[in-house]
């Protein structure tokens, strides 16, 4: 196993009085793809959004336990600098209503970079990194919203790369894309994992099987509190799960 990038220790999260996820301890290895799977409402997205503290935006959220990034407690960090280290790609492509260039340059600019040459370099490198450069290099001033859905999502990945994070969170990044665009995103994920730690939430079992090295299976019962059932190498989860619920889920018996 590679070195540990993110570790959660007895982590729980409540929305007011409602406990959304409970007692999750997991070690996410560096430069690997870790998939979070499970039925709707099992808390996997909430868990993912804990890693860059996006849940802070929701009033009434409280947490227990710890989340460590490179051994450092993220709840003691400034959320702004945390989010520069942990990037995120959302379920629906959400480029800003700005040009392609300005979308990618947004992160470096808010971090204070003004040098045009450096920005040009970062924009090109990030778009290449997201496998979008060849399609848009002549139209960098075109609105990001004019791209197709799959291109928009790759633009959002490029935008995340521009901040130079070490972790990229992906919340069902292909859920709103057609099969071909989905495959391109999956190829891209395998490419990115050379340099980044990736955590991906997906509803698609085949996708988890194709792109991830490790898989965490979340489940919930009538209390609607999400719990971690099983976490192992993806191969093991898919061929030899230890828990009956995992087996039932991945073979499609429920969920």
């Amino acid at each position, binding site marked *: 196993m590679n070195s540990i990038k993110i570790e959660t220790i007895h982590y729980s999260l409540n929305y007011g009085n409602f406990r959304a996820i409970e007692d999750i301890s997991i070690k996410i290895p560096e430069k690997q793809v870790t998939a979070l799977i499970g039925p709707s409402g099992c808390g996997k997205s909430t868990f993912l959004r804990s890693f860059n503290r996006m849940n802070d935006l929701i009033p009434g959220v409280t947490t227990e336990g710890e989340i460590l990034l490179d051994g450092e407690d993220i709840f003691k960090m400034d959320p*702004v600098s945390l989010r520069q280290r942990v990037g995120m790609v*959302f379920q629906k492509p959400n480029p800003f209503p700005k040009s392609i260039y300005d979308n990618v340059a947004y992160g470096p600019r808010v971090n204070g970079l003004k040098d045009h040459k450096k920005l040009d370099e970062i924009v090109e490198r990030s778009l290449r990194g997201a496998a979008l450069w060849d399609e848009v290099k002549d139209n960098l001033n075109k609105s990001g919203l004019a791209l197709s859905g799959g291109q928009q999502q790759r633009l959002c990945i490029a935008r995340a790369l521009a901040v130079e994070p070490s972790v990229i969170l992906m919340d069902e990044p292909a859920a709103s894309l057609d099969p071909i665009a989905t495959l391109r995103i999956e190829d891209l994920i395998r490419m990115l994992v050379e340099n980044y730690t990736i955590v991906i939430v997906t509803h698609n079992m085949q996708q988890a099987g194709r792109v991830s090295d490790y898989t965490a299976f979340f489940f919930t019962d009538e209390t609607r509190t999400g719990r971690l059932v099983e976490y192992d190498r993806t191969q093991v989860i898919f061929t030899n799960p230890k828990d009956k619920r995992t087996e039932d889920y991945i073979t499609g018996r429920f969920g």
Partner: protein
Amino acid sequence: MQRRYRIDKGIKYLLFFSAIVSIIIVFLIFFFIFQSSLPAFQQIGLRNILLETTWRPTNGQYGILAMIVGSVMVTFMAIVMGVPLALGAAIFLAEVAPRAVQNVFRSAIQLLAGIPSVVYGLFGMVVLVPIVRRIPVPGNSGYGLLSAAIVLAVMILPTITSVTEDALRAVPRSYKEASLALGATHWQTIIHVMIPAAKSGIIAALILGVGRAIGETMAMIMVIGNSVIMPTPLTDNPLTIFLRQARTLTGNIAVEINYATGLHESMLFATGVVLFILIMIINASAHLILRNGERS
């Protein structure tokens, strides 16, 4: 089945009738004002009306340039003072304030919108004018452009605030999340993402505010002094121009219509026409700015 069909058709005519009535009323007003103003334009001439500053109906002098300048100046000053305040309040309500505070502030601001303009005028006369009068400049009566603009700024506050707040709230959540997830601060997110995305709504808010400001009559009559003078500084200091008394186009109509007859009366209608065209120009240019902004 037949009956339902008939009701459906009946309702359609009813709705058509309501729409047509409002259009007819608008046209009747247009027609009436233009017709009544016609003698003034014919006998005095456009040049003498728009480019002369002397308003002396008893002497046959009907120049309204000083009042056009008065209206435009007081509106512009109110916008300069009121808009930053309104935008700040809207951003605070939409983005910063906790829900409980939001409700209190929003009710308070909406209450401002419900105060009749004569009460604003009263407040201006009793509170504001005495304060402005303390500025030690010879010839400063307290009544004038500054007092009027402050009253007007407060009056346009609720409109601009609530429309801007709605525009900010209509910005998709995903934009905000994307910006924060890229390591932008809340303030950077507001400035670089939320406000640009809400731009068309904010400009609509400004148009509404300008329209309200330039059309305001009663409160203006009560605090602006109503002298028909081309605004000039009272002393060597150019800033004292803001202490000068003035008259607005709306005020001119309201003050004199009770005793005006003949050509004088027609001239007041002509004032209304000028006001009407002024508002159309402002609206059209705002729309133009808006459309150009969206294209780029």
